[in-house]
């Protein structure tokens, strides 16, 4: 195995660290601890992680948290609950970071998603490209206006 994939042993440890971040992003994660779990020095861990994923473990953790925050906000979770559920400790820093990454404040993002959801429910066919509706007979089948 290692002959075929010479770096596989290292890959597996870094991949496990990434999967760990994916699973526990909502906890108080410490990059030092993750590096320890992966049996790397912090510096070596960060360097290898960045080489593979194009961002540092911390940058990746922030991305994962913001991604999950988007999902929660879009499904009606409050800004405060979202902040703590995805692992941030301060609503202020969460809001600031969220705005920087997405271009919208959390509350604006949630409001936009809600508006979109209502519009889709009102006139669903407006949101579906014609090749999936007009050309395939969906208009008269499952794609009915709600």
């Amino acid at each position: 195995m290692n002959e075929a994939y010479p770096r596989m042993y290292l890959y597996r440890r870094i991949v496990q660290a990434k999967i760990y971040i994916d699973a526990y992003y909502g906890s108080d994660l410490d990059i030092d601890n993750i590096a320890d779990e992966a049996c790397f020095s912090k510096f070596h861990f960060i360097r290898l992680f960045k080489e593979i994923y194009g961002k540092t473990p911390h940058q990746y953790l922030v991305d994962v948290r913001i991604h999950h925050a988007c999902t929660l906000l879009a499904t009606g979770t409050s800004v405060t609950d979202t902040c703590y559920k995805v692992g941030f400790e301060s609503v202020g820093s969460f809001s600031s970071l969220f705005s920087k990454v997405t271009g919208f404040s959390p509350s604006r993002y949630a409001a936009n998603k809600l508006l979109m959801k209502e519009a889709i429910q009102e006139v669903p066919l407006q949101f579906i490209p014609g090749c999936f509706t007009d050309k395939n007979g969906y208009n008269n089948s499952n794609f009915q206006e709600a």
Partner: protein
Amino acid sequence: MINRMNHVSIYVLDQNSAYDFYVGKLGFKVHTDAQMGPGMRWLTVCPPDQPDLEIILMPIVKGMAFTEETAEQMRQLVQKGTFGFGVFQCNDIYATYEELKAKGVEFSKPPKEEFYGVEALFKDDSGNWFSLGQKPKK
């Protein structure tokens, strides 16, 4: 002049299961997930670095371009692994392969050097095949 593609559909056997596969395992982002009326859910996902490419996870059901008979035929074809739908690119194929395998994705070919780059083959939860590719490093 056509510039880009921004919607493409993949026929899936079950949208809930496809959601778990594409979002939970592949790490794609949900673009739109909305009920569109009786029995119709419009579910589109995007690769993380390609937010303007919506992959429609299209259920194979009667009334969705299919009669009951053709839907059943299509379901059987998809289940049998008849269709190869495309190539997904990643920055590091060995790491991605290890990660997806750890998440239970079924591969029929581990990463292998081909003349066009390194390639692996996996299938989704419905039976659709995809190549996983990494461009040759310059």
